């Protein structure tokens, strides 16, 4: 891949999704785009990038952006956010909403679905009292390919082996040869929809929990500020924003404060 090829990918990513790809990530571009190049019958990533430059390549560019932003994920990834959710945050929110009996959750980067399904499994397994509550669970991603995977809820042995407690695997998945299918009642808890966080958002309801883990690292500072400002308008005053371990609101938005007593990247809106 030439320097010009790399520069073309960097520019397209910034223009189309406000994603900043730093210098020296050529290996990442090669690794992510090679399967795509092969699928299109091309001999190299360079050839694929040449196609991106040609007129009328909108569909290919969308595929390129999707391939570049697909992140690594697993069930119960990093574990602490989910332990905190189970032990502290959900019991507290359930107590606070016991009269309304409504909870609204948004998982803002579904990827291949392991994170939203982890949350759904926690709700289903550990909080049976929510069975007759109105749970609004929205999960979104930029990638249509990923959303298709999420809606299918079908995982390889390697994927379920990674981070998913075997007791939950046995109870909530059905084995289909070497693959595992999540139960329909869990799949149906979640509404999977496409949203590009870097573009104008549709009208959204207020949420009690917004999971935005390992997403902001991809965006430039202005986009991060815009995302946090929009979230501050739809996060309930006693709700939580959950960020990834390498992410923070510091220097970006003063309306948030980290909840130091909670392990796992929990933020609340600062009292006005």
């Amino acid at each position, binding site marked *: 891949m030439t320097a010009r090829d790399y520069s073309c990918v960097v520019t397209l990513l910034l223009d189309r999704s406000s994603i900043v790809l730093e210098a020296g990530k050529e290996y990442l571009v090669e690794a992510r785009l090679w399967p795509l190049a092969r699928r299109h019958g091309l001999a190299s990533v360079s050839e694929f990038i040449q196609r991106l430059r040609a007129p009328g390549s909108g569909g290919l560019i969308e595929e390129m952006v999707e391939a570049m932003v697909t992140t690594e994920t697993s069930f119960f990834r990093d574990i602490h956010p989910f332990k905190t959710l189970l032990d502290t945050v959900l019991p507290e929110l359930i107590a606070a909403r016991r009269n309304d009996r409504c909870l609204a959750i948004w998982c803002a980067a579904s990827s291949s679905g392991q994170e939203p399904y982890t949350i759904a499994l926690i709700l289903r397994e550990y909080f049976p009292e929510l069975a007759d509550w109105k749970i609004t669970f929205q999960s979104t991603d930029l990638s249509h390919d990923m959303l298709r995977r999420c809606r299918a809820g079908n995982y390889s042995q390697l994927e379920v*082996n990674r981070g998913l407690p075997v007791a939950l695997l046995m109870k909530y998945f059905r084995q289909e040869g070497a693959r595992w299918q999540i139960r329909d009642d869990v799949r149906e808890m979640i509404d999977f929809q496409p949203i590009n966080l870097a573009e104008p958002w549709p009208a959204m309801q207020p949420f009690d929990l917004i999971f935005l883990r390992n997403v902001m690292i991809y965006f430039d500072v202005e986009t991060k500020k815009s995302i946090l400002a929009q979230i501050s308008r739809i996060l309930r005053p006693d709700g939580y924003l959950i960020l990834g371990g390498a992410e923070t609101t510091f220097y970006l938005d003063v309306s948030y404060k980290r909840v130091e007593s909670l392990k796992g990247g929990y933020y609340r809106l600062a009292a006005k």
Partner: protein
Amino acid sequence: MRTLLIDDSRAVRAFIRPILRELNFEVIEAGNGQEGLDRLREFPDTALILVDWNMPVMDGLEFVCAVRADQNFDAVRIVMVTTETESEQMNRAMMAGANEYVMKPFTRDVLVAKLSLLDVFGA
């Protein structure tokens, strides 16, 4: 904390051993279930056992049943690490008293994530 690693494959033990040491476990080893029981009686304060299923002399499932039949070892956590990937087999292992289950082949990350589950969720 001490962990007992039971597998008849030296290669598998050689793969797992450094991962456990990296996690600050003291590692003792055995090549089958019977040797594993002997080692466990020798070191009764062992906190964690990783055990293969298919082994000569005494297999992993028999080993789990034997450990769970002895009240002295109620607190020890057992993880089956095995090529048995059928849900019926998993169910048998869990019913016998295993706490977690790792399907072979697996990567370092898979094992670390499973051990974190035991640590944090107390599975």
